[in-house]
């Protein structure tokens, strides 16, 4: 770990001491700083996006706190234990998903939650981590790039929870689970020609799958292609968020002064569309800063993944790092009109409990995988 040229011996001592402290906590300093900056930025924006609601900011901060605790705990867990526990976590996750689907079917409506009395719990969130873990677990002792039979098994590992999640129906999470799993396969070194072939199959599958989508899901995709066709209906979200971002200009309208957000023209301004609030109030500068922070975190995470030596650790941490960027890109792409509206929150910034905790858990695991590595090279 290098901190560049630091003149003051006091500063160096302090930094060295804190680096040592972080190392003993199995945490990575730069990654932690990156995450903290994003979270802090998020809280500032949240105050404005929630309509100056201190309660919402505190709630968000509380969830962040829970996420940090979860991250701290998971960072302490030894990779070997994690690896052994993987099949159990995966199976439990599948069972919970089935339970949710059944409860939802009985209740005749969309069902994503399990009410555990004290808190509500979303099993599909677990699968966001459990699926790449299971894929990594399955592939780690098999020769890579994976053989065709192994590949098919991995695909099945992904398909089962993804299908159960989409059936809830929760297309957004289903897609994210699939992506997290597929990333493991790609990181495992799947041959380029197979990737291309699969891409072709996916395209055909998408064409088929179209008919299985719910009406509102089809509508969302169609609206993405032509938002103006229904400006007050399904296209409203996209139009309003583009107006918010576009009217923000380079420097923005100022904190708490975005008319689109403050006057509630922007739907879901504190959750899925908070990126547009940043764009309106802090302009291109504010968005570029956030994107830079995200890229820093992703870059650091990939760097850490490359430092790990076990296959399981590599595949899993690589997937966690890239999935994080996928979240960012899907949300920002959706809000800025590059992608259809799928309902994915902006990582660490959007209001919403479970996804914040899941993300921090992912980074906890990533730090654990990195910091528990055996130092072979110097």
């Amino acid at each position, binding site marked *: 770990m290098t901190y560049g040229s630091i003149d003051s011996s006091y500063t160096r001592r302090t930094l060295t001491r804190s680096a040592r402290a972080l190392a003993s906590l199995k945490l990575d300093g730069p990654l932690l700083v990156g995450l903290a900056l994003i979270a802090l930025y998020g809280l500032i924006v949240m105050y404005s996006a929630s309509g100056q609601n201190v309660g919402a900011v505190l709630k968000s901060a509380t969830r962040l706190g829970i996420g940090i605790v979860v991250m701290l705990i998971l960072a302490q867990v030894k990779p070997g234990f994690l690896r052994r526990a993987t099949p159990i976590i995966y199976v439990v996750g599948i069972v919970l998903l089935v339970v949710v689907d059944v409860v939802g079917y009985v209740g005749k409506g969309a069902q994503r939650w399990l009410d555990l009395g004290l808190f509500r719990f979303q099993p599909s969130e677990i699968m966001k981590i459990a699926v790449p873990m299971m894929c990594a677990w399955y592939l780690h002792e098999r020769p890579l790039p994976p053989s065709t039979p192994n590949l098919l098994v991995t695909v099945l590992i992904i398909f089962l929870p993804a299908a159960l999640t989409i059936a809830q129906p929760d297309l957004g999470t289903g897609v994210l689970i699939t992506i997290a799993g597929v990333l493991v396969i790609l990181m495992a070194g799947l041959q380029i020609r197979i990737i291309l072939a699969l891409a072709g199959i996916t395209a055909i599958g998408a064409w088929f799958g179209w008919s299985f989508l719910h009406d509102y899901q089809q509508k969302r995709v169609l609206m993405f292609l032509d938002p103006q066709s229904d400006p007050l209906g399904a296209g409203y979200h996209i139009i309003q968020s583009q107006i918010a*971002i576009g009217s923000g*200009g380079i420097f923005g309208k100022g904190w708490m002064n975005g008319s689109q957000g403050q006057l509630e023209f922007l739907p879901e301004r504190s959750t899925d569309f908070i990126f547009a609030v940043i764009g309106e109030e802090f302009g*291109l500068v504010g968005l570029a800063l956030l994107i830079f922070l995200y890229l820093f975190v992703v870059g650091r995470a990939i760097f850490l993944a490359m430092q790990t030596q076990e*296959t399981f650790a590599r595949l899993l941490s690589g997937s966690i790092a890239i999935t994080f960027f996928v979240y960012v890109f899907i949300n920002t792409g959706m809000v800025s009109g590059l992608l259809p509206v799928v309902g994915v929150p902006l990582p660490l910034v959007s209001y919403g409990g479970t996804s914040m905790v899941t993300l921090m858990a992912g980074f906890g695991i990533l730090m654990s995988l990195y910091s528990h590595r055996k130092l072979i090279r110097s």
Partner: protein
Amino acid sequence: MAARVRIKDHWKEQRLFERRALIAGALIGVLALVLFARLVTLQVVRHDYYTDLSQGNRVRIEPLPAPRGLILDRNGTVLAENRPAYQLELVREEVSDLDATLQRLSDIGLIPADDIDDARKLVRSHRSFDSVPIRLRLDDEQIATFAVHRYEFPGVDIRTRLARSYPYGEIAVHALGYVAAISEQDLARIDRAAYSGTTLIGKLGVEAAYEAELHGHNGSREILVNAQGRSVQRQGAFVPNLNTVDPVAGEDLILAMDLEVQKVAETELGARRGAVIAIDPANGDVIALVSRPGYDPNAFGRGISRVEYQALLDNIDRPLFNRALRGTYPSGSTIKPAIALAGLAYGEVNPSQTRFCAGVFRLPGSSRMFREGRSGRHGAVGIVDSIARSCDVYFYDLASRLGVDRIAAFLAPFGFGSLTGIDIGGEKPGLLPSREWKRKAFSNPADQVWFPGETVNFGIGQGYFLVTPLQLAHYTSILANQGTSWKPRLVNAVRDPVSGAVRHLAPQKDAEVSATPEQWHLVMEGMLGALRGRGTAAATAGRNMTYAIAGKTGTAQVFSVGQTEKYDEKTVAERLRDHSWFIAFAPAEAPRIAVAVIVENGGFGSTGAAPIARKVMDAWLVNGGGA
């Protein structure tokens, strides 16, 4: 590859992973650039476009309707004013299901079920973001009902607006007209922008004719709205600067009408059907304009229900019908002064000669008898007596000597057969017959010929000749003026509501009727005689006069009676009785009022109409008015 066992090569796998990670990193960089490019497009390239859109989103221009001008009588009594009223308004774009909403409003009793269709039409004819009044005046109970159910009706709200109020109700309704909700037809002819925010528009009478003066100029206010369209005070920490254009109130109208005289005329007509018009001969000012029965104009401003309106339409007495301007009747004997004047002017009458009336007139070479209408025979009558005692035989003879075309030519400048040009719309021209008219009016060649007998009837105001009560009043004022004609007018002056400055409208002169002073004098003597001695109205309108009245009775036949049978008032149904006419001006030497009265099915002019005219003149000349 079945037999081949693949050995895990950790070093190679590490290299493979690193390669993939770098590819992933590169892809991430590319996607980040795509995203950044997109943001630059939105925030830099198309920034102005989106700024306009966001501005349009948050600022809504709300119209501030101008208060409508008041209508006052000549003494400053308010006849039409504005009172705050609670009305139910609906914004179409904020209502998800218009039909269901209207039905539900009807279910809880806020709009009558019969009015749902009209309300829907009205809402549809406005722009989707306009707040359209669907019920104009809510009472306390309805306001309470809505308050309870308000949450069920997004996009529907109660607003306080100024509504039109007519404190005297039915009085003068046919002169004032009324205002009502702007209809689709109205929208087609008005400037929508100027009327945005205005809910009521003049429909008839003064309210319609002086709409431009009364309406004023609406202002507007920019308001900050949130996504629900609700007005909000601030946006985040920033209070924006919004423009307001104040409305300019409509001008007040000062009528020539005297409310007291008007009230007397209304009261005297009472439940009878008819019309009274009183005009100041000096300038054409309409002192009173009555058509009865009337109706309550407040009902229209309140939002008349279909049932109420249908009841007015179906009423056999036709209260919506403006008899004063649109009722056309035979003039009866009221035309005799003009025929006499024509006889004098054309030299067909020698003032010193008399003609013997034996009760019957025959055209030379014809056996057809034209009977005296009422009193049998008058004996020897001159020009003055023939008017005073309304001798039909005298005028049968005079008319046949004048001929129809000379009569028509002489009557035209009195305003017969054409519009008087009164300043409110809706008047009818009546009918002034002539040979040429008959040739054009009938398609059958046999009917196109003017018969001499028709001229004879014309002499006593029967036959094709039709007049409106307004025309007769106008004619009477010309008789009073000895030829000078002013266009009748209801509105005298326009007052600026802010400065109070009054702009008087100049009276407008019309074509003059020319005759010598002696000829005018003879005719007036005849009309004075009608209220004296053996005159037709001496016993009714002429009793206890404190000023000299010149008048003329008239009786207009509703249907012709056969030649030999005598007409018996009591045997025909009340509605088939003759219409009763009376015209008069007073004081005779310096006329200050000219009156025309018709009482439908009122029988003889002297008994039905004349007493009413006397009361009206008394109200104006004796009891304070007109001083």
